[in-house]
């Protein structure tokens, strides 16, 4: 096992029925300070994976290490202790309706047997960290969705956890709330030295906040790496589908010209800022039609995509390709079908 990893999965499998494994031999390393995204469609095994990560479920085979210790070797008492150094935020908030915001944040502290006087000081501090000062005595039913999730985050960080798990934490919120919640997570990560693991089906969430990402499909990790690498050059079809729904939803009638050549150009970092198309047109006598484009500002890099149509004779198109290669622009030819996917 890797000594530096905070969480490490070693060949983790989980099966509920003998026919099919919900998770198939997953290897995963999450390092301190990562904001690690796990993305997959519903049924891909995200929640099962998270339940194994946080010790809620034991894997059928394989091992889960947290902070250097094998979770399966812990007795139930030690495991409960370990769980107190993990925070969890849920899709449906799961706040206690019988307790105020104060009571909800105080709940994990009571579990950890933190003395009364400490709790009375700490809870208001936690609520102010998530921007809810003054809402101590509000019951969850009187708070908005975004505020409820903030209470849930304050609760999750109450015991100063090493890792914060977010299980579709933004899925039940409207876009404005999603943005401010993700900003809050980023801010807390900086302040509290957190490692964050985010389970989501929204690529926007990965783009907005994650440094690393693993793509889960049918219980397997099909692609994994730095978010900027994945955005610039996605390899697996599932990853592409996740990425391209961000940009493309093109109508059918723009396809069908026989001289048409469809390309997706990708550029990263400095290249994203250069005026590529106008220089291309000076090198090759073709028509360029821009069908879609995007520039994503990720955590540590800018990644741009352009879907273009080249129309012209073969010799001129070849010149255009030469130019792209000379400029070291990553590109790929697409069929209309690939573009629609």
């Amino acid at each position, binding site marked *: 096992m890797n000594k530096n990893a905070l969480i490490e999965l070693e060949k983790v499998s989980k099966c509920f029925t003998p026919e099919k494994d919900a998770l198939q031999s997953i290897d995963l390393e999450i390092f301190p300070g990562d904001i690690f995204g796990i993305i997959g469609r519903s049924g891909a095994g995200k929640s099962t994976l998270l339940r194994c990560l*946080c010790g*809620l479920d034991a894997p059928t085979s394989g091992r889960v290490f947290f902070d250097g210790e094998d979770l399966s070797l812990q007795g139930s008492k030690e*495991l*409960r*202790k*370990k*769980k*107190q150094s*993990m925070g*969890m935020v*849920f899709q*449906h908030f*799961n706040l*206690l*309706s*019988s*307790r105020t915001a104060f009571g909800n944040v105080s*709940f*994990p502290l*009571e*579990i*950890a047997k933190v003395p009364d006087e400490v709790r009375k000081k700490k809870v208001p501090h936690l609520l102010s960290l998530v921007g809810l000062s003054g809402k101590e005595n*509000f*019951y*969850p*039913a*009187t708070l908005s969705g975004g505020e409820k999730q903030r209470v849930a985050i304050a609760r999750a960080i109450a*015991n100063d956890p090493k890792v914060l798990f977010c299980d579709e934490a933004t899925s039940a919120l409207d876009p404005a709330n999603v943005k401010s919640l993700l900003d809050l997570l980023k801010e807390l990560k900086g302040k509290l030295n957190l490692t964050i693991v985010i389970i989501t089906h929204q690529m926007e969430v990965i783009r907005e906040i994650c440094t690393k990402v693993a793509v889960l499909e049918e219980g397997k990790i099909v692609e994994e790496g730095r978010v900027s690498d994945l955005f610039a050059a996605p390899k697996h079809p599932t990853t592409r589908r996740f990425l391209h729904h961000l940009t493309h939803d093109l109508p059918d009638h723009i396809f069908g010209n026989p001289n048409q050549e469809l390309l997706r150009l990708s550029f990263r970092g400095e290249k994203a800022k250069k005026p590529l198309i106008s220089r291309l047109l000076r090198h090759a006598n073709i028509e360029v039609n821009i069908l879609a484009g995007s520039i994503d500002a990720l955590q540590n890099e800018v990644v741009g995509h352009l879907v273009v149509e080249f129309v012209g004779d073969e010799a001129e198109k070849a010149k255009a390709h030469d130019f792209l290669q000379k400029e070291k622009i990553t590109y790929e030819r697409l069929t209309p079908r690939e573009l629609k996917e």
Partner: protein
Amino acid sequence: MTFQENLTLTLRLVPIEFLNTLYMVFVSGFFAFLIGVPLGVLLYASDKSGLYPSPWIYRGMGTIVNIGRSIPFAILIVAIIPFTRWIVGTSLGTTASIVPLTIAAAPFMARVIEGALKEVGGEMVEAATTMGATKAFIISKVLFPESLPTIVSGVTLALVTLVGYSALAGLVGGGGLGKIAIQYGYQRFNGFLMIITLILIVLLVEGIEYMGNALVRSIEKKRGKR
């Protein structure tokens, strides 16, 4: 009997028997609750989605509870006379009838508690589990507080049922409004006392329901749900 005589009889009998009814209903309700809470927790916990799934305990407990609920109360009173005598020393009278009333209401309470705890839902339990809570902590600090409104309305319903059962205690020498209804209304054809008794029982049931609902409403209002 003249109206005057009826009124005198009413004032002599009704207040004390009304208090006897209250005494039977609330004391047996209290004991039934005390028995019902652990039984309900056991049923909740041993069910397959519970904290300690155990099909044998669940089925065994469930069968006992269902048998308890299916025996008609009039038969139960008679059937457990030896047990009643062993507990309170006699099988006659108001206090003695608390024993069968308790036994009749306890299974009902158990199902009330079980149903209320189940209503809280697995997500909340799981959330507490991920925070490292023990099962006892989850039961006392999550399940009971969360299901309090449901428990209160279930207990209200149980008390109303007990009012009905307590009237039958009059059959076997127990006191209460049921005794008046049987001795004066049924055996002596005294329509006046019969109607007074009926009105009081209806008012008692209404009163219990009103208080129960008011309590539920105030809990929910405090929690911002209304």
